[in-house]
């Protein structure tokens, strides 16, 4: 049978039938078990597919990666901290680490800042839905597509020739020399982050906007009746009430920045000193065939994210407490 036809049948029939069939099957099997024990077993059967997949694709590989990061390139002999020494002793990887710090700060500031601003502004106009859709739109575009889109914004032609990049057309129209946005360090990393911010601002905006609408209008009205002006209402009431949501969104953006990969891979592949940790790891793994070093980079990434994870879990506990 044609493999594509087989795949199509599995996709259209096999997958839905097996996922729904699973629950019906386990409920049938549970009938064979005496009553009291049913209630003890049932939750675990409902959780089983999730737990297996989480273990196979997240828990086991993470533990294994930590172990591999202490091994040589054939993953046979224990080499101690050598892979970590390589990471912290090589200029290229340190540049990647520095760039991730820039990503973390600039991406979070830009996307949360602009997202908050847009959420507040569009709350006051009638065409709110249209404006929000436009800002949200890039999220439906792949990073690969975004990379190509922005090539025509950043494109550079030598001075004197007509510019094909939008930004340089603007710069030369002002009488200045065109800028090689993607080549010039350290400007280029910021230019890549702008692309990421263009994508993620919509995400921040949507969540912040929903929180904004959740603020009781009576509360705002009461403040105004008591004589507070708009700025005071914003600073003393709106902002404090938005803070938990801003924290959620910022956390998401910090994690996004630390994991940044696609834009760098497509736009520069880490050249011109724009490398980031995730792209560096991809190179170590596939171009240089160094699983030990790649694992060490993954562990470093994980360690950077752990504090964010702890904050996340604490916040969740607090939420559950007031639930």
């Amino acid at each position, binding site marked *: 049978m044609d493999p594509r036809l087989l795949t199509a049948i599995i996709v259209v029939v096999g997958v839905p039938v097996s996922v729904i069939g699973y*629950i019906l099957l386990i409920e049938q099997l549970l009938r064979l078990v005496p009553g009291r024990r049913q209630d003890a077993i049932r939750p675990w059967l409902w959780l089983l597919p999730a737990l297996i997949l989480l273990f*196979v694709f997240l828990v086991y590989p993470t533990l294994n990666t930590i172990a591999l990061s202490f091994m040589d390139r054939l993953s046979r002999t224990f080499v101690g901290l050598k892979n970590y020494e390589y990471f912290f002793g090589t200029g290229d990887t340190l540049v990647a680490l520095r760039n991730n710090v820039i990503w973390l700060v600039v991406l979070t500031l830009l996307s949360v800042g602009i997202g908050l601003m847009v959420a507040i502004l569009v709350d*006051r106009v009638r065409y709110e839905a249209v*404006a929000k859709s436009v800002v*949200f739109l890039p999220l439906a575009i792949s990073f690969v597509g975004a990379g190509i889109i922005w090539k025509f914004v950043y494109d550079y032609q030598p001075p004197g020739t007509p510019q094909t990049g939008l930004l340089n057309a603007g710069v030369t129209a002002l009488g200045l020399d065109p800028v090689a946005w993607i080549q010039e360090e350290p400007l280029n990393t910021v230019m890549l982050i702008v692309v990421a911010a263009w994508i993620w601002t919509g995400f921040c905006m949507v969540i912040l906007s929903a929180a904004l609408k959740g603020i009781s209008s009576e509360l705002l009205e009461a403040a105004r009746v008591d004589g507070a002006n708009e700025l005071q209402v914003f600073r003393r009431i709106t902002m404090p009430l938005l803070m938990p949501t801003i924290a959620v969104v910022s956390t998401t953006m910090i994690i996004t920045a630390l994991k940044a990969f696609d834009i760098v891979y497509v736009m520069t592949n880490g050249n011109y000193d724009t490398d980031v940790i995730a792209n560096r790891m991809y190179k170590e793994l596939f171009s240089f065939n160094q699983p030990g070093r790649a694992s060490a980079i993954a562990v470093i990434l*994980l360690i950077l994210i752990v504090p964010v994870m702890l904050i996340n879990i604490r916040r*969740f506990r607090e939420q559950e407490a007031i639930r």
Partner: protein
Amino acid sequence: MTAATGTGRPSIAARPDIAAARRPSRRGPRLGRLALHASIVAVIGLWLLPTAGLLINSFRPAADVARTGWWTALGPPYSFTAENYAHVLSRSGIGDAFINSLFITVPSTIIPIAVAAFAAYAFSWMKFPGRNLLFVVVVGLLVIPLQTTFVPLLKLLGPNGIKLLGPGVGSFIAIWFAHTGYGLPFAIYLLRNYMGGLPREVFESAAIDGAGHATAFFRLAVPMSVPAIAALAIFQFLFVWNDLLVALMYIGATNAPNLPLTVAVANLANSLGGDWQFLMAAAFLSMALPLVVFFSLQRYFVRGITGGAVKG
């Protein structure tokens, strides 16, 4: 909270007095209103401009794209062509890649949502020891970078392991479960928050009437969670359709018969060099389906995602 975001909007729209109180500056000075509109229009323009440029360029002949900026095409002499799209569709395997992307994306959306819904139902409406601790661990997994998992999984699934990767259906199956595993923490978190917020009485009276858990799940929990499930479906669909990294890992950049669109387009970007006009057409073809999905279902998306993410 989840119910509030879902039902809050219509009731506000129905009561103009509240809506007016919420938008105080609509009564503000005219100059302020003008500045407000100007800044919003500026943001809209800024956000649309890059995409519009690519769209226009993808319909221009190659020589023009290389010589002049896309904005010059807006004035005479007008020269547009569909040649780039015709070329890409006929020669570069983009048509196959489109089908492959569907093969990857549809199960990678259905499986995690189903599996997460089972788990979320158990976390919400069944009692068992360690329930909250287990849920916290699952939410904690949200922040594991995908990169951390690749080396061991390639060993496990690749030629030295169970040989699932490579041409044929195997690598599709591997990537379905991979996307499921990666998507589960967020999906369980979102659905648990939503299902846990459904009224307890409904489930209690169903149990009194003799309905089992399967009935309660398919007849009550799932239909009542449609906004959250729809939001999740869109989010997961966009994520998988647009994913490059996971596809590079599990399908590979050179596994020609199984390549999804993102990898095919990235390959074009790396290999074409000068042939940008085809790349633009290919990029736009890869955006078409997610944009349709986004515009037809964005209402659900905007509402459902906030249900889980925003509390209090």
